[in-house]
C-alpha cells in the first residue's frame, strides 16, 4: 500500500463507505420501484428498502454507540418489513389485481426524470451543508434524493397501490434523514412516529379498499370527476 499519488481523492473510511453504500442501495431500490411492473414486486422492494434501513440503523448503533437505534431498528423491522407489506399484500390479494396500471411516462423517460430529480436533491443538500454527528453528509444527500424520487413515483404512477408505496418510501427517506441529522432524537418520539406510520397505513388500506369498491379498479386514471 504505497502513498496515494498527487490529486487522488482519499477513500472514505470503511464506516463512511459502508453507511453511504447502504444509503445508496436504498436509492437504487427506489429506482427499482419506479421500474417494477407487478404491484407485488413493488411491495417487496419496499420491504427490502426497509430491511436496508434497519441494517443501517444497527450499523450506526454499533459503530457510533447509539443504543437507542437498536430499539428503533427492531421497531422498524416489525412495522415496515412485516406489518406494512402484509397489509398491502393482503389488500392486493383481496382485490385480485396484480399488474400496475400504465404509467404516465415511459420507463426511460421516467429514469431520466428520476435521475434529474435525484441530481437536484444532491445539489440542494450539498448547498445547505447540514451535517450530523453520526453519519456522513453523503447519506443526507441520498436521503433527500430518496424523498424527491418518491414524489416522482407518486406523481407518475397511476394506481393507488403504487402511490401508497411511494408515500411509504418517502417516509423511509425521511427516516434516513432523521438518522443523519437527529440520531439523538429521543426514542419515544421516534417510536411514536412509527406508530403514526402504522395508523397511516391502516387508513391507506381502508381507503384503497373503498376506492376499489367504488371504482372496480385500482387505477387512478378514472379519477377525473372532480374538476374546477
Amino acid at each position: 500500500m504505497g502513498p496515494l499519488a498527487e490529486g487522488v481523492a482519499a477513500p472514505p473510511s470503511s464506516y463512511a463507505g459502508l453507511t453511504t453504500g447502504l444509503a445508496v442501495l436504498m436509492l437504487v431500490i427506489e429506482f427499482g420501484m419506479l421500474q417494477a411492473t407487478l404491484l407485488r414486486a413493488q411491495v417487496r422492494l419496499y420491504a427490502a428498502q426497509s430491511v436496508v434501513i434497519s441494517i443501517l440503523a444497527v450499523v450506526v448503533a454499533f459503530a457510533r454507540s447509539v443504543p437507542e437505534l437498536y430499539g428503533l431498528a427492531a421497531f422498524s423491522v416489525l412495522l415496515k418489513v412485516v406489518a406494512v407489506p402484509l397489509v398491502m399484500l393482503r389488500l392486493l390479494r383481496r382485490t385480485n389485481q396484480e399488474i400496475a396500471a400504465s404509467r404516465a411516462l415511459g420507463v426511460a423517460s421516467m429514469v431520466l426524470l428520476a435521475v434529474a430529480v435525484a441530481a437536484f436533491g444532491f445539489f440542494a443538500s450539498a448547498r445547505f451543508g447540514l451535517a450530523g454527528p453520526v453519519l456522513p453528509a453523503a447519506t443526507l444527500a441520498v436521503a433527500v434524493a430518496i424523498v424527491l424520487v418518491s414524489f416522482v413515483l407518486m406523481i407518475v404512477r397511476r394506481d393507488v397501490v403504487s402511490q401508497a408505496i411511494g408515500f411509504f418510501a418517502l417516509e423511509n427517506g425521511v427516516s434516513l434523514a432523521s438518522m443523519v441529522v437527529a440520531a439523538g432524537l429521543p426514542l419515544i418520539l421516534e417510536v411514536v412516529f412509527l406508530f403514526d406510520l402504522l395508523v397511516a397505513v391502516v387508513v391507506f388500506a381502508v381507503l384503497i379498499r373503498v376506492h376499489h369498491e367504488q371504482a372496480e379498479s385500482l387505477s387512478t386514471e378514472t379519477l377525473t370527476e372532480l374538476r374546477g
Partner: protein
Amino acid sequence: MTTVLVALAVVPLLAAVLALLPGRLPAPAVSVAAVAAGVTSLVLALVLVPAAAAGPVAAGFLRVDAISAIFILATAFLYATTAVYSIGYLRGEHQRADFARYSRLFWVGLNLFAWAMLCAPLMDNLALLWIAVEITTVVSALLVALDGTRRGAEAAWKYVLIASAGLGIALLATIVAYSAGASVLGPGYDLAIAPLLGAGPMLPPSAVRLAFVLAVVGFGTKVGLFPVHTWLPDAHSEAPTPVSAMLSGSLLAVSFYAVLRYYQIATAALGGDFPRGVLLVFGMLSLLLAAMYLIEQRNLKRLLAYSSVEHMGILAIGTAFGAPLAYAGVLLHVLAHAAAKGNAFFGAGVLVRAYRTKDIERLRGGLDRLPWTAPLFLLAILALSAMPPFGLFRSEFLIVAGGLGSERFVPAAAMVALVTLAFLGLSMATTRMLFVPAETGPGAASAPRREPSAWMVAPMIVGVVALLVLGLHPPDTLSALIAQGAAELEGAR
C-alpha cells in the same frame, strides 16, 4: 389551570370512546355525549381566555399561550356548534341502509377529529404537534369517505395522499428544527417550543431557513395554500356537511397554527424579512387563485371551499405584514372565520338537504322555501365577504391597516382588490340561489316551505351572534388575549 388543560385534552376522547361502545346505549346517548363534550370544551376554552391573556399556562408537555388559546377557542366553538348541527343532520340520513353503523362511525370520527384538533395547539412540542396534525389527517380522510360515494372515495384518496406527502415534508422540517435546536441546546433537546424560541438568534440560520420553508410547504399542504391546495375543494365538497364545516373552519386554522409556530421560530432566529417574504408569496397566490375560481363556480360546497382557500391566503398575508395590528387581525380572523365558515356550511348543508343537489344552477328560490336558513346563510356569506358589522370585516380591516402601517402598500391594495373579487363571486352565486324564484313547471306543486330540522338552525343563530359580538364589540378579555397574542408573535414571551 392544569386541570383545564388536561380536561381539554381528554374530554373529546371520552366522547369518542363512548361512541365506540356497542349498541347497549340508547341512540341519543351518543349524540348527547358529543354535544356535552363540545360544550364542555367551549366552556374550558373560555375559562382559559383570561388566564392565557396574562401569560402562558403550562402543565408538563401541555402549554397554552395566547396564540394557542385563540385556536383552541375557535376549534371548541366549532366543535360545539357542529355537534348540535349533526343531530339534525343525522336525522335526515335515516333512510340509509347501514344507518346505525354510519352514525356510530360518524360520531366516533367527529369526536376524534375534534380531539386531535384541540390537542395540537395544546402541545408544547414540535414533534407532538406534528403527530396531532397527522392524526387529524387520517381521521378526517376516513370521514371524507364516510358517505360511500365514488366521488367521496376519489376525494378522500386525493386528500390523504397529498396531505400525507405534505406532512412527510413537515416531518423533515421538524427534524431539521431538532437539528437546529440540538446544535444550541444540546443533543438531549426534546423539541419543546419555548426553549427553541428562547435560543432564537443563536440558532444556525441555514437550518432554520430550511426548516421554515419545509414547514410552510409541508403544513401549507394542509392549510390549503397554493399550489398544494388541490385536494381541498374535492375533500370539502364531498365530505358530510358537519365534517366539511370542521374541515374548513378548524382544521385549516390548526394547520396554520403549526405554520405560525415555525414562523415564530424563524422570526426569532432570522429576523422578519425572510419568513414574511415566503408567507407573502404563498398567501398572495392562494388569494389570487381562490378569487379566480370563485367566479365561475357551479358546486355550492366547492364555492365555500375556495372561500376557505381565500381566507387562509388572507391569514398568510396578514402574518406577512408583520405589524402588531396585522397580527391582531390575523388572530381575530381565525375566530371569526371559524364562526362564519361554520355557518356557511351549515346553511349549505340545509340547502343541499332540501333541494337534494349541490349544483348552484338548480338551487333557486331559497328565501321562499327556507324561512330561517336562507337569511342566516345570506348573513354568513356576507360575513365571509367581510361586510360590516361582522367580525371578519373588523379582522380584515385590521390586517389591511397593519399592512398600510408597515408600508406594504402594494400587497395591501392587492389584497383589497382580490377580496372584492371574491365577494363578487360569492355574492353572485348566493343571490342567484336565494333571491331568484324557483321556476315551477305547469302543474307542478311548489316545494314545501319548511325547515328540515330545528337542530340545524340553532347553531347558525349562535354563529351569527358570535360574529356580531366579534364585529361590534369583542369582550375585553378577548381583546386582551388578542393583544397578548399579537405581542407574542412580535417576539415577546
